[in-house]
C-alpha cells in the first residue's frame, strides 16, 4: 500500500496521456461488453438449454415436419418422462422488419416442459379458454406495446391469410438469460385453420427421466423411426440450439475475431504508452534504484502502473457496457436476450488485466534491467 502514492503520482505525470490510454481501455471493454451481449443474444438459447431435454426433428431437415402420431409413441418410450411439440409459424406482424419467433405449441405440455417461463394463473386460464389465444414474451409485448386482451393479427407466410390472435398471457423468464421475445399460440388453432400440413408438427421436445441416459434414448428413438417415411434426428436441446444458431452464420467466430482485433490493438496502444512512459523517466528509475529499490521493486512498480491503467479502463468500460445493456435491447426486439452476465464481466476484467500486464511487461523488464550508472549519465 505504501507504494500506491508513488504509482498514482506517476500516472498523474501526463494526465492527458493517461486519460487517453484509460479511454482506449474503456472503449475496448465497452465494445467487448456489447459483443459478448450480442453473442449471448444469439447463443443464449444454447447456454440455458435444459440438460435433460432432447429435441427430435425430421432427419432430412428442420423445415420438414414430423407426424403428430409420433407423440403417443414417444410418450410410451422407456426413459421418456414428458413430451411436447412445436411448429414454426413464420408470420409477419405489420411489417417484415418486425420479426420475432412464432411457434404453434401444444400449450399444456409446453408449459410443463418449460417451467422456466412463468405465466400468471389467471392469464393461463384465459389462454386455456380461448382457442385463438396466444402468449407473448415480456420483452416482445414491451416492444410492440401489447397488453393482455389485445388482438394481434399476423400475416401467414407458410399458411397464407391473416391470422388473428387474442393476447391472453405474457410470460416472463425466471433467469436473466431467458428469451422473452417468443410468441406462442395454440396448436389446435393452427390445426383447425391451416389448409395443408395437418397432422404434422415441426419438432418434438422430450424430457428424459435420467439425463445420463440421453444418448441411449436418442439413439433408440432414431433407430425406432428409421426406415419409416419420417425418419428422425434426435439430439440434446443444447446441440439443437447450437445448430439453429449456426444457420445464422458463425456468430461465435465473428465475435471472437472482432474481439481479438480490439484487444490486440489495445495491447499495442497500451504497450506503446508504457514504453514511452518508462523511457521518459529512466533517470528517475535510476534514482529509485540508487536509494535502494531493487530491480524487482522497479519491475513491480511499472507493472502496477500498467495494471492500474488497465484496471481503471476495464472497470469503467465494463460498467458502461453493463449500464447500456440494462437499458434493454437497442434494436427494439431483434435480439432475443440482451443481457451481460456477471461471469462475462469477470472474464472481461481478467482479460483487461492480462492485456495490461502484457503491455507493461516489456517496459517493466527494461526498467528492471536498467543500469543505474548508465541511466544517471542520461539525466
Amino acid at each position: 500500500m505504501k507504494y500506491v502514492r508513488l504509482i498514482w503520482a506517476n500516472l498523474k505525470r501526463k494526465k492527458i496521456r493517461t486519460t487517453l490510454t484509460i479511454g482506449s481501455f474503456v472503449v475496448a471493454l465497452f465494445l467487448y461488453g456489447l459483443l459478448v451481449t450480442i453473442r449471448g443474444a444469439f447463443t443464449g438459447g444454447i447456454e440455458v438449454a435444459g440438460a435433460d431435454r432432447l429435441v427430435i426433428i425430421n432427419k432430412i431437415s428442420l423445415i420438414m415436419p414430423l407426424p403428430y402420431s409420433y407423440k403417443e409413441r414417444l410418450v410410451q418410450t422407456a426413459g421418456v418422462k414428458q413430451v411436447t411439440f412445436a411448429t414454426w409459424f413464420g408470420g409477419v406482424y405489420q411489417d417484415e422488419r418486425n420479426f420475432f419467433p412464432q411457434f404453434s405449441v401444444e400449450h399444456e405440455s409446453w408449459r410443463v416442459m418449460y417451467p422456466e417461463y412463468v405465466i400468471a394463473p389467471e392469464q393461463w386460464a384465459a389462454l386455456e379458454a380461448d382457442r385463438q389465444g396466444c402468449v407473448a414474451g415480456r420483452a416482445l409485448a414491451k416492444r410492440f406495446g401489447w397488453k393482455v386482451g389485445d388482438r394481434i393479427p399476423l400475416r401467414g407466410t407458410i399458411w397464407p391469410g391473416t391470422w388473428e390472435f387474442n393476447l391472453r398471457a405474457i410470460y416472463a423468464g425466471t433467469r436473466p438469460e431467458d428469451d422473452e421475445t417468443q410468441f406462442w399460440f395454440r396448436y389446435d388453432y393452427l390445426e383447425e385453420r391451416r389448409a395443408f400440413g395437418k397432422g404434422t408438427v415441426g419438432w418434438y421436445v422430450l424430457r428424459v427421466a435420467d439425463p445420463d441416459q440421453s444418448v441411449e434414448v436418442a439413439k433408440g428413438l432414431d433407430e425406432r423411426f428409421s426406415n419409416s417415411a419420417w425418419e428422425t434426428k434426435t439430439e440434446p436441446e443444447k446441440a439443437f440450439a447450437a445448430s439453429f444458431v449456426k444457420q445464422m452464420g458463425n456468430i461465435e467466430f465473428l465475435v471472437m475475431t472482432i474481439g481479438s482485433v480490439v484487444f490486440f490493438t489495445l495491447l499495442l496502444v497500451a504497450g506503446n504508452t508504457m514504453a514511452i512512459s518508462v523511457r521518459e523517466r529512466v533517470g528517475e528509475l535510476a534514482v529509485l534504484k540508487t536509494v535502494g529499490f531493487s530491480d524487482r521493486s522497479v519491475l513491480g512498480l511499472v507493472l502496477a502502473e500498467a495494471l492500474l491503467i488497465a484496471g481503471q479502463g476495464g472497470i469503467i468500460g465494463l460498467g458502461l457496457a453493463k449500464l447500456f445493456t440494462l437499458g434493454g435491447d437497442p434494436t427494439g426486439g431483434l435480439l432475443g436476450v440482451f443481457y451481460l452476465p456477471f461471469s462475462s464481466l469477470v472474464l472481461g476484467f481478467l482479460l483487461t488485466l492480462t492485456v495490461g500486464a502484457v503491455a507493461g511487461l516489456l517496459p517493466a523488464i527494461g526498467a528492471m534491467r536498467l543500469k543505474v550508472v548508465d541511466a544517471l549519465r542520461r539525466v
Partner: protein
Amino acid sequence: MIRVDGKGDGNGLIRVRNLDKKYQRGSEEIHVLQGLNLDADAGDFVAFMGPSGSGKTTLLNLVGGLDVPSSGSITVAGDEITALSTGKLTAWRARHVGFIFQMYNLIPVLNAFQNVELPLLLTRLSRAERRKHVETALDLVGLADRMTHYPRQLSGGQEQRVAIARAIIADPTFLLCDEPTGDLDRKSADEIMNLIGRLVHEHGKTVLMVTHDPRAAERAEAVLHLEKGVLVEAAGVAA
C-alpha cells in the same frame, strides 16, 4: 584519518585497495581508475577534484555500489561490497549510502515530503514513524515549511536541500556527493556546503564529495586530485 598510500590498518570505515576500472569502447580500452587506494574513518570529509574524465564520479559510483570495479576491493564498515551480488548490493546501498547529485534528481511528481520519504518506503517503519523521520530531516535542512511543495515550486538550493534530506533520511553510514553545488549560485552553494559541513561536524557523517569548486573543496579535511584515473596530489592526508 585519511590515507591514500594503502597502508591503513583496515579498521577504518572505508577501505579501497588497488581499485581499477576499465571500459571497453570498441577496440579501445579506457582505463578510468588505476590502482587507487583510500582509507577513511567515520566522520571524515574527503573532496575529490580533477578535470572531467579523471575518474572522480566513477570512484564515487564504485564506493557507492552503483558500479563494479574491474579489479581491486572496496570494504565499507567491514562489508566487502565488491563481493556482493546485485541484490545484496542494492540492499546494502539502501542501508549504508546516501547520494547527493548535482542535478538533485528529485522525482518531479512527488512533493518534498514524498521525495524524502522514498528511502523509508523500503523499511518496515509505520506511516506515522516515516512521517516523523521526514519532518525531522526536512527541519534539519530548513525546509519544514516546504513539505508539500513540488520540485518545480522550489529554488535550486531548496531542491538540493530536499535531496540532502532524502540522502540522510535513512541515517546512512556515509554520504556520496557528486558536485552538490555544481548547479547552484554562490549563495546557495555556500548554504549547501554549510549544511554538509554541519552533517559532518555535528552529526558525525562521513562524506566523500566530488567537486570542481575550490571553495567547496576547501571545506573538506582532505582534497585528492585525480587525473586520468590516477591520484596525483593529496592534501590533508596522513603520510
